[in-house]
């Protein structure tokens, strides 16, 4: 999950995911969308996205073609489950402490 989050934190990587969400694009045409970014940097972004499972990569001759891999995002669900589990565990401790305080006040 951490890899997915790290991958989407960078705005250009989110932009790349949007570019290839409906169809495949080559590394070259993706790079052409970012004239202000060096080609090695774009390649690095593509690698991070691929390694996080968010991009599907295939080779055609010398070209590399990319498309968004939506399955990669199902892990996002696990992130939310963990978020709420963590928060609710804290709620449990806080509410039980509060209840004991109320009970003590009432018994006084």
């Amino acid at each position, binding site marked *: 999950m951490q890899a997915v989050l790290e991958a989407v934190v960078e705005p250009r990587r989110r932009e790349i995911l949007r570019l290839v*969400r409906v169809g495949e694009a080559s590394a070259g045409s993706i790079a052409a969308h970012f004239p202000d970014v060096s080609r090695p940097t774009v390649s690095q972004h593509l690698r991070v996205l691929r390694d996080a499972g968010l991009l599907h990569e295939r080779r055609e001759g010398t070209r590399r073609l990319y498309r968004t891999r939506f399955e990669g995002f199902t892990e996002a669900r696990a992130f939310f489950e963990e978020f709420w589990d963590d928060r609710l565990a*804290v709620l449990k401790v806080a509410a039980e402490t509060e209840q004991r305080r109320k009970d003590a006040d009432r018994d006084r």
Partner: protein
Amino acid sequence: MPTETAEPLIREIDIEAAPETVFEFFIDPAKLTRWLAVEATLDPRPGGVCHQVHEGAGPEHRRFSMEGEFVEVDAPKRVVFTWGFSGPDAVVRPGGSTVEVTLSPIDTGTRVRLVHRGLPAAAVADHSGGWTMMLARLAEAVRGA
């Protein structure tokens, strides 16, 4: 907009406290800030604001603004509020998802059932990229928390 919506996320936890006690932790800012947020502005009635500030655990302590709205408030049984983030770079629509909390009395206290609806399954399907932004913000907010 080809946004997929995932099955609702459902979590349950049993708490050894009365439903009235637990309920306060959702509608009282002083109590909500003991478990979910660092600041809260709450107007617990339908249409009332449910604004929570979450703080990142990173060195910069970045703050993230959850701009929700109460949909249902039925003390001490049920509270529903919308959940979404705002900010200069946030494009997720506040109101994009909904958190439903139901409190049931049990022998030992209260069973809390939390249902988070409207979480899109495929973030990048969203033109705005809001879902990924929201995840990034949440990740920052809970990291090391």
